[in-house]
């Protein structure tokens, strides 16, 4: 199955730069996600790969073939649209066998393929149903089956689960991954849902304003975000502003607002530099009382939220910054609103980023 390469690809719509000089390599048989907020250019990237829009600059390869001038029908792709785009005048069977028919397969072969893919998506009993007679989940399965039946080697999925309810979404996302892995397809999946991307992807590219900020496995992106935006968009992060007080061979000291000092293991920063600390809510320790340890800050619990498996505390720190702490709800004793607490963290769990030029709020904005 083919790999996909984008080399310095650019696409503009008038003054809007949808894709800004993107280079990317999706490996063969990989399940790859393009993740980013609405309007970041991820769908445009997918449509560029499909040939539904043409790049202004750059090169797109599917396998070894430069496909810039190759029409969509000759790219051996399957495209699953967010709205499914099932042909309303055809029933499920005609939709599924459309690809083999337009590619000139003989009827017997087309029918065999149709039955195989419908078996795969477990929708054999609804062959005669028209799209308006199917549920969202069924339409999604038919859309995937249709793409697979066309003999796609590369499956492109544009927010394929966006129109489904949460339960069905969770079921289908694993089904899609399983099918692509069983068929050894290369798949590129566009989504704005980081949990969806994390759950099914081998690797993810995080995109913002037409640019790829970071590519990595879900774990890499979560554990080692390379920018404030990635730390914010993948999982959840607390951000604390400060400046670098000292840098040594063992790490650095950051002074937060109110003069609170924090130790980190970060060394590639300069003294006096304005920085942002990112801390995952789940990595923080929270203890009742006012006893301060190394890398601990005192505060008062302002709000608690029970989220089922977790309990979430919003803590107003002594320097008036706010921190979110998430703890397993069934494992620990719950704390109450108004209680004085000490929040502490390991230096190795802190991520230090240069303060964004546009400001912190603008940097993490997703709209």
């Amino acid at each position, binding site marked *: 199955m083919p790999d996909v390469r984008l080399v310095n690809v650019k696409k503009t719509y008038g003054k809007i730069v949808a894709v800004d000089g993107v280079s990317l390599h999706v490996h063969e048989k990989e399940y790859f996600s393009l993740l980013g907020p609405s309007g970041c250019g991820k769908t445009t990237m997918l449509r560029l790969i*499909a040939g*539904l829009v043409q790049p202004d600059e750059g090169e797109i390869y599917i396998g070894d073939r430069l496909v810039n001038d190759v029409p969509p*029908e000759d790219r051996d792709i399957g*495209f699953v*649209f967010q709205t499914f*785009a099932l*042909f*309303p*005048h055809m029933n499920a069977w005609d939709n599924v066998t*459309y690809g083999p028919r337009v590619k000139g397969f003989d009827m017997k072969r087309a029918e065999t393929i149709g039955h195989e893919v419908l078996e795969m998506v477990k929708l054999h009993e609804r062959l005669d149903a028209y799209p308006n007679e199917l549920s969202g989940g069924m339409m999604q399965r038919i859309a995937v089956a249709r793409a697979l039946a066309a003999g796609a080697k590369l499956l492109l999925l544009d927010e394929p689960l966006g129109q489904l309810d949460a339960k069905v979404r969770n079921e289908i996302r694993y089904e899609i991954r399983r099918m692509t892995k069983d068929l050894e397809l290369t798949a590129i999946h566009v989504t704005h849902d980081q949990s969806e991307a994390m759950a099914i992807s081998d690797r993810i590219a995080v995109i913002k304003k037409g640019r790829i900020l970071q590519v990595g496995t879900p774990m890499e992106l979560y554990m080692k975000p390379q920018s404030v935006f990635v730390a914010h968009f993948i999982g959840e992060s607390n951000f604390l502003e400060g400046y670098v007080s000292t840098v040594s061979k063992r790490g650095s000291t950051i002074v937060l607002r109110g003069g609170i000092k924090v130790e980190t293991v970060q060394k590639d920063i300069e003294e006096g530099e304005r920085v942002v600390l990112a801390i995952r809510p789940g990595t923080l320790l929270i203890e009742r009382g006012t006893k301060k340890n190394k890398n601990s800050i005192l505060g008062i619990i302002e709000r608690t939220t029970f989220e089922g498996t977790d309990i979430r505390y919003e803590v107003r720190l002594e320097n008036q910054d706010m921190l979110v702490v998430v703890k397993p709800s069934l494992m620990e004793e719950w704390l109450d609103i108004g209680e004085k607490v000490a929040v502490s963290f390991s230096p190795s769990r802190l991520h230090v980023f240069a303060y964004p030029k546009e400001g912190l709020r603008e940097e993490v904005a997703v709209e």
Partner: protein
Amino acid sequence: MKNIIYIVSIAIFLVLILFPPILGILIKWGSMQDVLDQPDLTSEALSAISASFAVAFFVSFIDIAAGVPMAWMITRGKSRWLNILDTLADIPFIVPTAALGYSLLLFWSDPQGISSLFGTPFVSTGWLLVILLHFTFSFPVVVRVMVGALLDYKLEYEQASRTLGAAPLTAARTVTFAILKPSLIASFTLALARSLSETGATMMVAGAFVNGPIFIQKHIGLGQEGPLVFVSFVLIALSSLIFVMIRLLGSKLKLPFQKVWPRTERKLSNSTVTSSRNGITLLIFLIIVLIPSLFVAIPAFEAIFGGVLPEALSGVGVWGDYWQSIALSYFVGTVVTLLNIVIGLPMAIIIARRKIGNGPTAILDMLVNIPIIVPSVALGASLAIFWKENFAFFPEIWLLIFAHLSITYPYFVRSMSAAVERVSVELEEAGRTLGAKPLGVFRTIIFPLTKYSMFSGAIMMFTRSVSETGATLVVSSLKTAPVLLARSWVLPYIEDPINAPVSRAEIGLGCGFLILLSFVILLVLRLIARGKARY
């Protein structure tokens, strides 16, 4: 409230749109016996009716074959110049029908027309020239309806088809036009109806060829009413039957969409073939539609360089009446368009959503076509009987507006009902469940999804009203631009060029101004309607 709107809309349709054009035929019903009593006359009438249907069906199929590629080119092309081409496609609609017939006669048969290239008349008057004429004036109907439909169409279906391996031609054939089948049928129906009813222009080019409307005209000249009633009745009855069948069977009609010829269609989708197709489409449009339609205006250049232009612009002599008639035409066209949008929209929704059940809707759907099936000469006579004899106390301008409402109403309802039919009912239901009132659903959901079709329908109504000649002549003594051009300028010139009140150059300039003004108005409206982002 919603039901009241629908009831009022149906009542207005029956009283204002449907009844006036057929009243004359109903009142004179007894005179039909005159025809039935004379086997020769009956046979002559039936052969004229057959000729009408033969021409109408042939022309409508050719209209689809030539008009759909034109609509495709206009909507899928990327050049901004296509806005101009789109507006040029309306030209045969803008030219007054009598002037259009005269223009085609000049172009195809006159020694100074295309015949000058061959030495002998290239196309003599007769059936071929009638076909060329009918193609010319019904071509814009197909283009207008299909441009609206293609602009409203959700491109994702076609893209899905392409990603599944379909060549562009296969995708268009098996998906796009299969989904747009209601619009294809609507455009075919409108073209068919337009061809069946046209009289004024056909008379000028028919020669010895006789179709239904010409048969009527011939016998009206002899003071016989029977042929008018007989032919009109048979035309209406047969057409209605055909339209009902189209309506009922249309949704079940399996056009050859499913079968695929991958290799052939792939070859036919390559850029050379596509460019050739666009070239041929343009050529057909230029040579058979546009140039013959504008030919009557070519002497305008002679007028411009001969010093007539300043006279025309200052409104001296015959030009004073001319400018008044232009203002009147645009006023009537605007009022008729706006009124028909208001009264036609609920009807389009009733038909598209089958609000009154399948059977009654099919009947209503068929009845909507009647005002454009009735031969215009019979329509004029019928409208005159209804309005002038019963409502003489109405200001004449209103009689004119009412007559034009009848004539143009079907264009809008046909185009809009096809567009509304394509909008999923679920979207409406979603709007209602979110708290929107029916009017709110229309304003926020239906209208944005059908606005191009609505605009197309409005253009057809406006241009049809501005160019209408035959019925206007009979209903009112007010001189709209087409009436003035046909009755006071063109016909006297054809009868006696030397003693006519105007010269050929002035006729050309008069037609030229009308065409140019209408063209500019339509182009500006089109640019405003589409905004900055073309399609």
